[in-house]
């Protein structure tokens, strides 16, 4: 499994509830491709969004998002960089 980042850009601030609803409705597209949502970051102005998934490949995430009707700019596989250990 790889980490896949999806970048989304919205002309208007994102309607998160509507996006969530669409995701839920098309969940089978994600499930059948072994695509699992990890987290989502939304810009404070609501116009940019980063979603992180784990999936067999980035293409699975792309296709799942396309079929679900979730708009995105690009999707790419990523390596998770080790975060510095918190200081005691």
């Amino acid at each position, binding site marked *: 499994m790889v980490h896949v980042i999806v970048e989304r850009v919205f002309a208007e601030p994102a309607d998160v509830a509507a996006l969530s609803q669409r995701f839920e409705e098309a969940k089978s*597209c994600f499930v059948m*491709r072994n695509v699992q949502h990890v987290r989502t970051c939304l810009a404070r102005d609501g116009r940019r969004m980063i979603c992180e998934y784990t999936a067999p490949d980035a293409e699975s995430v792309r296709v799942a998002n396309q079929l679900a009707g979730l708009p995105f*700019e690009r999707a790419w596989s990523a390596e998770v960089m080790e975060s510095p250990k918190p200081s005691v």
Partner: protein
Amino acid sequence: MVERLHIRLLGELELSRGATRLKLPPSKKTRALLGYLVLTGRAHRRERLCELLWDVADDPRAALRWSLSKLRELVDDESATRLVATREAVRFALADATVDVLEVRPFAEAQLADVSTAKLEAALACFRGELLEGLELPDFHAYYAFCLAEREALRGLHARIVTELLERAMSAPDRALPLARRLVDLDPTSERTRALFLQLLHASGREREAAHEAQKSRRLLEPARGPERAPEPSTRASPLASMRMSEPPPMLIGRRAELRRAREILRTRDGADEPPRARVLLVTGEAGIGKSALFAQLLTSERPHVADLHRGAAHELDPGFPYAPLLGLLQQSGMATAQGDAPRGDEAAQARERLFHGVARALGTKLDESERPVLLAIEDLHWLDEASVLLLQHVVRACRDRRLSVLLTARSGELADNAAARRLVRALRSEGRLEELSLPPLSPEETCALVRGVAGDVDAAAVHAQSGGHPLFAIELARAPSLARAGVPASITRLVRERMESLAHEPSEVLRWASVLGTSFCIAALEPLLSIDPVPFVEALEQLERLGWLRFEPRVEGGTEASFSHDLVRRAVYDGLSEPRRRLMHGRIARRLAALAAPDESHAAEVARHAVLAGDAEMAVRACLSAGRGCVRLLATADVLTLARRGLAHVTSLPLPEACTLEIELHELMLLVQRPERPEELGARLSELATRALALRQLEHARRGFYLQSLLRWEQGKPSDARRFSREAERLSRLEGPRARLCGLADAARCLTMLNRDLADAQAFVLEAEALVAAGEAEIAGFRLAAGMLELHRGAHELAAVQLERAVELAQLEGEPLIEFVSLEYRLELALSDARLDEAEATALRLAALGTRMREGSEAPFACAALALVQVARGTGDTNALEEAVRALALADAKQRTAYVLTRWAELLLACGDHAQAAARAREALALAAQIEHPSETALARAVLASVAHAARDEDAFARENEGLAALGQGLSARARVAVERARAYGTSP
């Protein structure tokens, strides 16, 4: 002036003075006392009267005094003291009072032929009913015997007067008819009278009444005669000649052992050491088992061995008609003296004693005069009236040391209902005088012999199976027009109905419900159907068992199993129910069974059966479905198909949408267990049903119909389980409006096809989308793309080309570059598969051009790699460029597309003989395909590796790849299947 007192004893007791009717005391005993005193007309000692009517009172004499005081008020007047009582005796003095019985009595001694018609008619008018109607008081034996004897005498007189008048009126049927009817009422079991009555009805032109009476005659007369048919009494030839309806004795087949035993019992052992003694043989068995036939055969065979044979039969119709069987018997045998003396007895005890002693004395005289025995033969002891039973008992006791043989027949079950007969049997048993013979059913050979005599060409084995060796049923079945029709002969239905009529309400109801439940059933299922309390219910069951209607056995799983003694009987009971009532009962049973919390398969099958018979088509179909699904779980294929077909037979009568939705479910049920013989035909039907369901907005069923249709077209297989309608289908069903549904269907079909999963579902979605488009919805590119992908997947290249071309056109029109790209991508695969490399290159160029216009993703790198691949294939390309394009594609992290290009490249290398490079590319492709679990790409890569191993004679590698191929599941594309087959065709070793 005091009005004259009139006393009427014929009919209900009535006293009147002039036109005024007097109010009688409410006490029955008081009224009976008056009747007794008037009829006897002489003095009686008070003790005698107390014994007669008050033998159980605390103070009989006081009771008698009280009654006399009440009667005195009624009958005494200023002109006469009619109740004359002293301290010792009481008598009734008639004075000027009139008494109807006394007016008719003189006719008993007269030659009626010499009496004028007017006088006879006046006498007849006195007969308003039975003597002292309602006052026979059976608990007071002496009085009861007196009453019965008087009644019999008067009934005889009544019949004589009517007969005389009838003979005089024969030339005028309208005058004769009421008299004949009256005669029939007096002796309903007389065949002679009934025949005459029928002749008169015909002569009067009352054909309908005649037909009704003829039917009634058969019903009344047949049970007493056994299995032989009643002769048709409505013949018009010679009325008086037809009054004699003689019949041949019933045919006796088999029963050799029983006959031998009976003869041993009946024949007194002449010359033996044993002294003469009375013997009684009781032949028992259920109705129709052949008692009458045996009885007749015994009479025939015993006649030469006896001094006298007296034959009689009791009738069900009027068990209270005293001495009828014995009186007939004695008249036949010329013992009129005994019969004539008794009924005219002046006093109750004397009357009975004289009757009994007279009969016994006559018999004794006859027995003493002859060396040979006398045979008394009485049929149907279970119907014998109490008076006759007592007389019979008296005769047997009186002749106990003589050569008297008594032959009795009885239905074992019904004997228990006749208390007097039961007591007689018990007494004879305790005296050691009774021998009993129970008749079992006939063996198959005996049944065969029996029915061959009735109808030579009948299937005797089938008759035996249906009749269970019951002679009556066997004869009637053999006589039936067609055994194959399996109907119950009308004669059996009639007999069963008559037997049922003698049952009380509760047992009748139990029988009716039981017949609807089936040949055998659980008691627990029967009880809730009836509105009968538990105790009467159990009593009814006990009675039905005793009478031989039902049998009971414990069930292995608990409870009690009940079954009819003969299925013919059940069917006859069932046939006796009206059609509306049957439907009502079946409906009630079906609903009750259906309402059970957890019905098992047998329950469901039962519900279906009853619902069908109740005419509730929807319940029947649903029950068939439920039962069928249960049978699927039990892998009972034949049952499933039977239930489904039964459901299909009823589904057409349902209204929409149920007719449509339930038919889809029934086809689904059949497909679960069996592939249809004509899949194209069924596919067309399912398409029709699904389209109709869609129009009816029955989306779930429409989808199920399309899915089943897709199974026939796609997998050519059976639904693996009832899992259909994954979340995809659920999601689709929530989409509102045909446009949204069309888009959803297309997306879902594409999604599944790309993954090589649930392809039948994918096909079903496409079919549904097609139906929507056919219904007028504008087609969309995504739908055509999905259809093309599916056609390509299953190897239908021409169809795929059409769909994909249309998909590209629509995508361009819709401005959907992604759909256009994927459509072209599949057209490229189509061209490569068909080795049309020019077209492949052109398509790859279009892909490359399109890829540059699309947002960042895997499309542009794939297009480059595809173009490089085609060019390498054509021999115009550069492998380095291809290598570079593949790396770029890998960076986009599109594993399926990368695996596809690598495998295609590996195939090219394999074809060129570069096995090492081919294996390297194939291994890369295999690793990628495995990560995304794509079956077709995995298979294609392994097929290349297997080929390489085969060429290199690497047995381990070859075996490994073959194992890998064998482990692949469903969903392979046509191209992958071909590759796998080719690899397997190499054999198990290189």
